[in-house]
């Protein structure tokens, strides 16, 4: 740290807590603009770090992802847990929403078990008061043994006091670690015993995990802890693990529940006690009547959908028109400036003109004019919906339909955004809860035809072939998307795609927060995508200059000409689309014009469809690619690119060859009939492919047995309604339930 004075002490702080409690607002209040937002290495999870100087200390703060528990349900939980135990921040600030004390304290108790210095931020205190409650801070401090601070993050109240309390602890010299929690007698005994086992056998060789946390988690059969301990002990752990297994079995048999259920219920008992002791009811409030009405109507079976349609369509049209307006005037500006540039830069044929104006400035305008006017308003729009709390309601309403195409209900948001612009759609996939869901949604939403693609479809297929053929084309696209969704479901855990989401109360949007977030996201995008777009623009001009285009066409001809039956010259226009999708068509039109023919002379009806289909399905545009790479990592982006290219070529090829087949058998039919039959045969083909993949995967998985708690086995046992021990019952092997018989 060169810029800091030597006496400034550095204190590392981690903000941890449930989603939506206000961690990021606190983080922003503390760090202001000095923050770096990136991803956790190789993950789709956001990582925000920043620092602030306060009273001779430099605080380095990290905003951990919002989680509900320190188990290993999601990648966020694993990341947070590993960060806390391995990086060992000096203090943990556990941010909680004091309006949902019980559920938040559930997480607090898990943090407490880590036995690290910790402080509790009781956030959204303003809302609590407004609701007519209050909280007894002293009681909480006493019962949990940690310092607390009331905070109203959005008004910057109590935020810096958090740091003051930390400094106080630091300077008083008695940094208190959070106390271990005390469970009910039975569990407490087990944990104590396991703890002393761990200690006396020196199993826990380092101090990364605390004794209580390890004992608790090993009793819970937590895979990560188990692996950690086995590694530390060179696999000499069978004896201990067997011992734990015994203990666990005893508890499960006694309670007739799975171990995690027993332990979690135990924690909730403690938490519930704290809640009842510390919440003070003052008066019942009025202002919540109005909100209740909104809460009710937005999830209503009829009005809910109407509101959803209005919200999405309205915003979409608004942004679309706004974007087109700006984008159009930017294009005009470019055109108007061109003659001047020609003059100054030495004529159309001068290579400086071509590189600088066509390449650099052209690329700049393509990026700034063609992408930003859509991207920024869309970011703004997502932030507003996120901030007022509408998104979970949309997910609730659409979950059923989204399930049909194999994705989580929340994916409706990126999908709808995708009709405007794929870039914000891909960023919006960050709202999904697990890494797999995020990746599935990125795959699906990046296939939604954006406004640029719609321009191509309208300007080519619709214009020359009419509405029915256009509909057919979209049906092909839809069927492909559904097929991909189905294939993704085959690979994913069924329960993982089940919706579990919090519908928190509506909030009045906080425009400062929204503007800040929009700014951050747009800035990121500009830094990442704009340079690439400009470089590509210049590269393409170089291609033109050195006459490399013909070579590209020849190089692509085995695919374009022979497999897809397209004209040779079209190859290079497919490459232009990488920059901006509509360039595919715009530049092709220019070329066809220059040849003195009409578009429908240049492309036969089926060629038009194949060309458009390829454009719909193949690589996403450069800006999208950049965002995918940022959100999901290089490897994922590369794979996606590869499969999109391959898939698009295959699908367009299949459609082409089916059409060839149909038109050879029935040459006297009109084009419309031929293409209709082609599409039907294509559906059948797709169905068979998905079916076969499903069969193949199931067959392959048959040998592998899942964990005893796994979903598949449960599915076989669930017919036993007679006994409670569903995962122990031998119903499927004995064809009768032991428990049931013994009862009779």
């Amino acid at each position, binding site marked *: 740290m060169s810029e800091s004075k030597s006496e400034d002490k550095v204190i590392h702080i981690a903000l941890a807590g449930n989603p939506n409690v206000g961690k990021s607002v606190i983080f922003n209040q503390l760090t202001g603009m000095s923050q770096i937002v990136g991803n956790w290495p190789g993950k789709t999870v956001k990582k925000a770090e920043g620092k602030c100087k306060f009273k001779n200390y430099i605080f380095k703060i990290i905003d951990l992802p919002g989680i509900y528990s320190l188990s290993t349900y999601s990648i966020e939980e694993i990341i947070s847990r590993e960060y806390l135990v391995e990086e060992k921040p000096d203090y943990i600030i556990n941010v909680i929403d004091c309006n949902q004390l019980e*559920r938040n304290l559930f997480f607090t108790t898990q943090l407490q078990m880590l036995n690290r210095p910790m402080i509790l931020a009781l956030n959204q205190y303003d809302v609590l008061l407004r609701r007519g409650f209050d909280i007894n801070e002293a009681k909480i401090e006493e019962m949990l043994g940690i310092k607390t601070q009331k905070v109203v993050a959005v008004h910057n109240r109590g935020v810096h006091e958090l740091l003051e309390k930390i400094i106080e602890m630091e300077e008083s010299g008695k940094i208190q670690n959070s106390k271990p929690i005390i469970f009910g007698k039975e569990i407490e005994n087990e944990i104590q015993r396991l703890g002393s086992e761990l200690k006396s056998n020196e199993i826990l060789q380092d101090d990364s995990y605390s004794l209580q946390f390890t004992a608790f988690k090993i009793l819970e059969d937590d895979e990560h802890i188990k692996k950690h301990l086995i590694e530390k002990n060179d696999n000499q752990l069978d004896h201990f693990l067997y011992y734990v297994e015994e203990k666990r079995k005893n508890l499960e048999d006694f309670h007739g*529940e799975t171990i995690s*259920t027993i332990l979690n219920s135990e924690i*909730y008992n403690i938490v519930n006690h704290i809640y009842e002791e510390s919440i003070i009811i003052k008066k019942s409030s009025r202002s919540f009547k109005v909100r209740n009405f909104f809460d009710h109507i937005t*999830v209503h079976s009829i009005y809910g959908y109407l509101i959803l349609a209005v919200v999405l369509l309205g915003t979409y049209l608004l942004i679309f028109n706004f974007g087109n307006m700006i984008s159009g005037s930017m294009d005009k500006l470019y055109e108007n400036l061109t003659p001047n540039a020609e003059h100054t830069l030495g004529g159309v044929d001068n290579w400086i003109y071509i590189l600088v104006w066509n390449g650099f400035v052209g690329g700049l305008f393509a990026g700034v004019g063609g992408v930003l006017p859509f991207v920024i308003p869309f970011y703004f729009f997502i932030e507003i919906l996120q901030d007022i709390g509408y998104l979970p309601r949309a997910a609730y309403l659409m979950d059923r339909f989204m399930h049909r195409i194999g994705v989580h209900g929340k994916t409706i948001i990126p999908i709808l955004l995708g009709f405007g612009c794929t870039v914000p759609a891909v960023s919006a996939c960050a709202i999904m809860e697990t890494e797999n869901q995020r990746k599935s949604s990125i795959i699906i939403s990046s296939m939604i035809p954006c406004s640029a693609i719609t321009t191509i479809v309208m300007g080519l297929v619709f214009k020359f072939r009419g509405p029915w053929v256009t509909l057919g084309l979209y049906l092909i696209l839809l069927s492909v998307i559904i097929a991909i969704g189905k294939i993704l479901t085959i690979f994913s855990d069924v329960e993982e795609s089940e919706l*579990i989401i919090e519908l*928190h109360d509506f909030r009045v949007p906080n425009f400062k927060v929204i503007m800040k977030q929009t700014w951050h996201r747009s800035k990121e995008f500009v830094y990442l995508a704009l340079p690439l777009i400009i470089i590509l623009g210049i590269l393409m001009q170089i291609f033109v200059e050195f006459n490399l285009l013909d070579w590209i066409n020849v190089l692509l001809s085995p695919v374009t000409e022979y497999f897809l039956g397209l004209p040779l010259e079209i190859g290079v226009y497919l490459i232009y689309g990488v920059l901006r999708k509509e360039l595919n068509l715009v530049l092709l039109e220019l070329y066809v014009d220059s040849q003195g023919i009409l578009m429908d002379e240049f492309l036969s009806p089926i060629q038009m469809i194949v060309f458009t289909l390829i454009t719909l399905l193949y690589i996403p545009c450069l800006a999208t690619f950049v965002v995918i790479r940022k959100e999901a990592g290089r490897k994922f982006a590369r794979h996606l690119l590869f499969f999109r290219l391959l898939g698009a070529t295959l699908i367009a090829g299949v459609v082409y060859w089916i059409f060839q087949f149909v038109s050879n058998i029935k040459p006297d039919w009109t084009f419309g009939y031929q293409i209709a039959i082609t599409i039907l045969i294509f559906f059948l083909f797709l169905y068979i492919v998905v079916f076969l993949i499903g069969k193949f995967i199931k067959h392959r998985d048959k040998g592998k047995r899942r964990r005893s708690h796994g979903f598949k086995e449960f599915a076989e046992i669930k017919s036993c309604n007679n006994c409670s021990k569903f995962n122990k019952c031998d119903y499927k092997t004995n064809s009768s339930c032991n428990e049931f018989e013994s009862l009779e």
Partner: protein
Amino acid sequence: MVQSKNNLEKFSEIPIINIPFNTNVSVVHIRAGFKATQRLSGMGITPGTQIKILSQAPFRGPIQIMVRGTRLAIGYGLAMKIFVKQ
């Protein structure tokens, strides 16, 4: 005698899906997989928890429930595996 009463009680467990709206019930079992159970308890649903269904989205959509002062939406498939009694 005690055993058969116990037995009867078992039969009175009903999936939460079949409970009318706005009725207070308490969770008896969660017969879901390991991860889903973990997730549900993180969100406040464990055996013994008092819950209440507020609404359900059409066509076997998710249900909206009230748990420990928060509202959650839970997918139909998973809701089928939460057993409650009145």
